[in-house]
């Protein structure tokens, strides 16, 4: 029976694989478990996966101990890891083996395209992906890699255009919206990025990182004449604090910055903080200071020097 993976299990397994003792190799079962946890949790550890996984594939025991479907899954996983670390020769070898085993698979074609991308041959990669899309116009992997090709070429506007076309059809893909937002940010289109983060929040409101990014973008958009955006950002930072049970340092910083901006740049009535906001500012400042005191007291002076802490704390 399968288990529900947790981050602790992953860390423990990784630890055991890395410290296999006396220059010996990590036992096959541990490596298998590590690879499975990474697959299920969609965790990217290219160096470790490449190292342990490659050794696993090449060993003779692998043929015995791994059943057919798991063997090829691991091959694919290790191949992507090798592309991440840039070991092109090994990756090419695996791609050849996969093509031989699955001659008509679009999944293997995507891998071939990724290999071309890694070698810098963007034209060939684009050709491969367009061929996949000709046969199956709804292949999400191919769409996303087309966008990566544009990004790899440095053509961010083309990447945005491709991603927008993709999102026109697949509008509930939160990761794609997040990627589009980061593309917009690199093109300094803050407003559009903010819209994308809103979509992310709608799709997965229980994920605090989306709220954080949205709040950050709202704060960046706010100007002395549009401080209501900063107030909204305060709200979203509070959501993050609730979701993370008060432990997000990023959110606390964000809150203090926003409240400081409202207080110092606001004109007239808009600059007055409500009672809740004042209490919140004081609470965050207190908690931040306590945190720094505990974990790195050397930086406490820097924190105080930023000037965002409300006076009187």
């Amino acid at each position, binding site marked *: 029976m*399968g288990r*529900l993976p*947790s981050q602790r299990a992953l860390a423990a397994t990784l630890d055991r694989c890395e410290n296999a003792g006396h220059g010996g190799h990590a036992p096959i079962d541990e490596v298998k478990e590590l690879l499975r946890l990474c697959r299920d*949790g969609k965790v990217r550890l290219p160096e470790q996966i490449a190292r342990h996984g490659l050794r696993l594939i090449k060993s003779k025991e692998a043929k015995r101990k791994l059943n057919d479907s798991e063997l090829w899954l691991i091959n694919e996983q290790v191949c992507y890891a090798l592309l991440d670390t840039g070991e092109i020769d090994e990756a090419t070898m695996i791609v050849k083996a996969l093509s031989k085993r699955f001659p008509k698979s679009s999944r293997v074609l995507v891998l071939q395209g990724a290999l071309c991308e890694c070698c810098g041959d963007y034209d060939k990669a684009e050709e491969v992906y367009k061929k996949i899309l000709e046969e199956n116009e709804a292949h999400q992997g191919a769409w996303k890699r087309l966008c990566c090709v544009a990004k790899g070429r440095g053509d961010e506007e083309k990447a945005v255009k491709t991603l927008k076309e993709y999102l026109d059809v697949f509008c509930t893909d939160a990761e794609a919206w997040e990627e589009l937002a980061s593309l917009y940010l690199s093109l300094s289109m803050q407003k559009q990025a903010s819209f994308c983060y809103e979509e992310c929040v709608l799709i997965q409101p*229980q994920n*605090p990182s989306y709220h954080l990014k949205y709040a950050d973008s709202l704060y960046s958009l706010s100007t002395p004449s549009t401080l209501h955006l900063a107030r909204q950002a305060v709200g979203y930072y509070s959501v993050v604090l609730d979701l*993370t049970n008060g*432990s997000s340092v990023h959110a606390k910083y964000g809150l203090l910055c926003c409240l400081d901006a409202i207080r110092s740049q606001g004109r007239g009535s808009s600059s007055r903080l409500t009672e809740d906001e004042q209490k919140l500012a004081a609470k965050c400042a207190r908690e931040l200071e306590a945190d720094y005191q505990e974990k790195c007291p050397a930086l406490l002076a820097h924190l105080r020097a930023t000037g965002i802490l409300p006076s009187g704390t």
Partner: protein
Amino acid sequence: MRIVASKKGDGTIEKELFSPESLKQNGVALTNGRTIIAIAGGMTSGILGLTGLKGGLCYFMYMLLFTAALALKLGWKYQPYFASWNQVCVDGIFASVTTYILFWTLAYNSVHVF
């Protein structure tokens, strides 16, 4: 792929990564187990010559035995293999009824009627 964050009593966040493939696999294993018990139970009931209500009640008894054995193997916790107790105990109990009836009839006829 879901990230479920739950707050624990002492203020730490426990984030669990749910793997829907594993959950589905476990569900399939559960269904297969129930089917096998239905077949074996049906043949037992037929061979024993149970009829009518007794046979019907035996079906529930077999299911109960299976659930108890499963709970024992799980160590009386449904985590981290299943999503809830409901799924372990209740889900799929009625799905194998037809299979039970078929094999019950088959065994009963083979042994007693002919």
